[in-house]
């Protein structure tokens, strides 16, 4: 009898939590973000742009620069820090983790035409990436960069659903 009541209470708690948490999750997950990163070399803007999160693997590097400017785009992926072995930990007494590293992934080069526009598609996967764009012309060289991250929207949805409903045991005896 007590068990039943306890179980009912748990179910009600789950229901209430789902009513509060799910809309919040939904609101966060559905936050839209353009898949385009604009680098404007015609105006004086920040060299390091605010990091962005994308729900799409295909992002587009685009922007504006003077005609005949060479645009070099380099993509780096962030290698997560590796855990040190127990032996090294015992010996050196250093922290458990090294700092991660930016590893060069690939590069693209374009020369801007009379439209003063450049467009380059770039694909990212799970994890962090750094996009570095350098504009070179007779006036000199300017480099701008941004850190981007891809999140799988469906995966986030699934994970939340599993966390909330996954442990729900419906085998009532």
């Amino acid at each position, binding site marked *: 009898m007590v068990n039943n009541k306890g179980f009912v209470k748990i*179910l009600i708690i789950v*229901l209430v939590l789902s009513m509060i948490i*799910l*809309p919040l999750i939904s609101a966060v997950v559905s936050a*839209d973000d353009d898949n385009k990163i604009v680098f404007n070399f015609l105006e004086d803007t920040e060299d390091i742009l605010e990091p962005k999160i994308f729900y799409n693997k295909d992002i587009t590097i685009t922007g504006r620069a003077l005609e005949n400017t060479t645009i070099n785009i380099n993509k780096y992926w962030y290698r997560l820090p590796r855990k040190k072995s127990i032996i090294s930990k015992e010996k050196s007494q250093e922290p458990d983790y090294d700092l991660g590293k930016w590893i060069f992934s690939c590069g693209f080069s374009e020369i801007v035409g009379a439209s003063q526009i450049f467009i*380059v*598609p770039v694909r990212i996967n799970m994890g962090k990436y750094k996009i570095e764009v350098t504009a070179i012309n007779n006036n000199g060289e300017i480099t701008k960069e941004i850190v981007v991250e891809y999140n799988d929207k469906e995966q986030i*949805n699934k994970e939340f659903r599993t966390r909330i409903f996954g442990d729900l045991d419906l085998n009532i005896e």
Partner: protein
Amino acid sequence: MVILKLEKLKTTILILLVLVSIVLTTRIWLDISIEGIFIMPKDNVIKEEKKDVEFDSLAFIKPEKMIINNNGKHTLLFNDSEKGALYNRILEEGMAFLGNLFSSKESMSYDILPIENLNKIRQGSNVEIILPFSFDVDILASILGFDKTDWIDIKGVDSIIMSFDSNLHYILDKKEGSLYEFNPIDLKSNMKFLLDMINKFETYSYVFLNELDSEKFSDDVFIPAYSSSFKLPRVSVTSEIQDKDLKDIAASFLNIEAGSLRSIVEPNGTVIYSDGSEKGMKINKDGLIEYVSYTSGIILKKSILSINDLVDIATGFIEDHLGFPYDTYISSIEKTDNDGCIIKYNYRYEGLPIINDNLGLKDLVEIEIAEGKVKKYKRLIRHIKETGELKDIKNPLSIIDILYKRLHDKNMNLDEIKIMDAYLAYMEFDTEKDIFMLPVWVLDVITYEGNRGKYIMNAETGVILSEPY
């Protein structure tokens, strides 16, 4: 003992209620179908209503562009052999929405947003069906089978936008500069399912150039970002009259025996046929067919001659006289006197429009109806086949650079030029013996003085094939 059983029963009922609540709230908030438990029915009231609509006319309402906006990624969907089925499913959803809209104004709540909201909406998850011309709302309603519509505030339907992750629908009215937002609660769409199908295909990212420079590009300039070379099939074409007896075609049009036809052959090879009284036609050796009828039709009551009736008359006549090529769409409808209209059609190959620049024929099928009868009919249709060879297509930004260089050479001020549209097409190119079709880039350009025209470039080489000024 009885009390214990009663408690167990109550607990079971409560558990069931909780489970139903969880399923329903999950469905509402996350908008995800749960297979086997909760699946939205595919068929609904609106679709049943649509069965009554004259689908023949409806089949020719096709978009100029179908843009998929997917969490910031934009792409174009073509009616090609790979994604054609999906394209047509989305189009059906769009027509179902319009059917729902026109069925009653009272039951539909809506907001009117400024047109500036379009860019923000394009950042969401939705499909944008841009129509080939701004449809008058009464014409569109008529084609959908409604005698009249109460939506007189909407002056023209330029595009329809349908969300993938909500029930929000929009109509863009450029004439009024308004964006109508609807939330038709009665309309159960399959858009989420269709988005899943789209995501299974590899698609190019597209960029709206007006987001980078709104002075030089209109909001219709939408170009792909290629990471590798992009290719299109090379095609060979033949005239639809090739290997056909012209007399048989003429007899069918003039509705008499082939032996009773009167004909004259002009020096350029054009053959003119007549039935000797009220109908005539000429067949150009390039394949252009023109028909004219001087008969007066039965004067029908005004109420009978809806646009839908006129489109039906045109459809029936064209079907009986050489038929429609695959992927035909209505490119314009102009009302004329005598309760008539001129309907123009075009067609596409693998989703790309066909252009014929040689004969200056903008629309490849044109029919004029007056007094319930076909007065004039003109067509130039090709049978298209792929050769198996693929052509490299130049990046659209390179094409824009070629245009700017050309305009610069003509001493035109580039700051006074605006590109209104940019798209790929197949353009017919005739020689003495053969007919070719080349993939081309078309740039629709307007000057600040209002001179508008199309620059057509060979998509493989960038050579300018046609220029308006």
